């Protein structure tokens, strides 16, 4: 006996219960990126600072959170930490886990962005007398950010899908609510087809947004001639 009901797919797609799960997925992703960027920036700055302790801490942080599965991190935060008397509600657990994990990836992206900005940019800013804070905010950060957008976009895409892991600790996002619908009606393919459609729509929308961001931040370099690369200095003959 095989049966598949396309109309049920449509019904699940417009299911209000599932739609609310979509909002939770969007919320987790947005908060994960925002929190991850702030924390990731801090980790990257520690890593780039001359201070050995901060540098070591940042390296250890990235090593740990990139080296362990997000699933374990979430489960430990939700079910392990209460053993030590540290308890959060389930959404907070998911956010803490996602942000801690995302920050490790974004820290590396932020760092590579800053390393790609020519040191001559900071030197020119200092030579003009600009304080370090202004040099960072107005000169190096905007240029580094432009370089960060493509890898950042990838990372947001991954995070969007990784929020489905939060279903394991019972956060009612798309995946969890699909499971619940499936267990109620046993229309496995129909429910997951609707969930899959939502993930595809969300990742496609993000692709569009990313392209617009790249265009916006790339506007100053769109017309750049390829010859801004420095050439070897030439000793010129006398012109007198």
């Amino acid at each position: 006996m095989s049966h598949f009901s396309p109309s049920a797919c449509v019904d699940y797609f417009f299911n209000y219960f599932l739609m609310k799960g979509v909002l939770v997925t969007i919320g987790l992703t947005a908060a994960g990126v925002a929190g991850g960027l702030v924390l990731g920036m801090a980790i990257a700055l520690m890593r780039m600072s001359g201070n050995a302790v901060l540098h070591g801490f940042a390296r250890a942080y990235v090593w740990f959170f990139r080296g362990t599965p997000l699933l374990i991190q979430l489960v430990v935060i939700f079910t392990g930490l209460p053993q030590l008397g540290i308890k959060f509600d389930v959404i907070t657990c998911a956010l803490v886990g996602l942000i801690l994990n995302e920050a490790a990836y974004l820290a590396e992206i932020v760092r590579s962005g800053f390393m790609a900005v020519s040191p001559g940019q900071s030197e020119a800013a200092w030579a003009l007398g600009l304080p370090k804070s202004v040099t960072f905010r107005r000169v190096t950060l905007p240029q580094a950010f432009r370089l960060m957008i493509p890898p950042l976009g990838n990372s947001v895409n991954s995070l969007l899908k990784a929020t489905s892991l939060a279903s394991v600790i019972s956060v009612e996002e798309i995946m969890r609510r699909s499971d619940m619908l499936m267990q109620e009606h046993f229309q496995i393919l129909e429910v997951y087809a609707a969930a899959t459609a939502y993930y595809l729509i969300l990742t496609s929308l993000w692709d569009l947004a990313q392209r617009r961001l790249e265009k916006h931040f790339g506007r100053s370099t769109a017309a750049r001639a390829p010859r801004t690369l420095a050439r070897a200095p030439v000793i010129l003959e006398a012109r007198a």
Partner: protein
Amino acid sequence: MTAAAQDLEAVKMEAVYKYYGDFPALTEIDLKVAKGETVVICGPSGSGKSTLIRCINYIEKHDQGLIYVNGIQLDNQPKNFDAVRRATGMVFQNFNLFPHMTILDNCTLAPMTVNRLGKDAAKELAMHFLTKVRIPDQAGKFPGQLSGGQQQRVAIARALCMQPKIMLFDEPTSSLDPEMVKEVLETMKKLTEEGMTMICVTHEMGFAREVADRIVFMNDGRIVEQAPPADFFTQPKSERARTFLDQVIR
């Protein structure tokens, strides 16, 4: 030294040493530059010319010796090196314009944030100096849309917007196409004529001969000789300067 003599000095370096690891980049540098003077520093690659000029505004930190700029002693106190950086303008080999800002914003950023100038006043100032380097019609463009020569003239205008007492040029024409060198050199020449104190690292011997008050010749991190251009080009004292001139002047 009397106060009056100090007043006449824009830059004074006394027994300055600078090392990169164990490598001595500058050795026993003694250099005085008077106000209004134009000094050209020349010498072979790796002789310490750029390092010397970059020590004057504390982009590089010297390891030993004393540097006074405009009477201010350069040390690791931000108060002092900030004052020195405000008193000096610098032009780099690779222009180092801020590529994400328009030409106008490149010029107004420092006056607005450092000197707390209003937006309109900063714009007026920027347009004044952009006009001076003959490039006011490009104010709304981004650096990547300009030729190398135009970019370097913008870099000069950007530095002038901070109304520096001393201008430092670090091989300003070395990454330019040959046909763009002249427009930059002429802008520099105009500055000299207006009495700006200038220290230029350059391989443009024609410019040095015509515009410099004094040539400083460096080799292996030391100042080998200093002389007015007429003497330096016709009767260099050191053997090293003679072989250098044989190579660059044909």
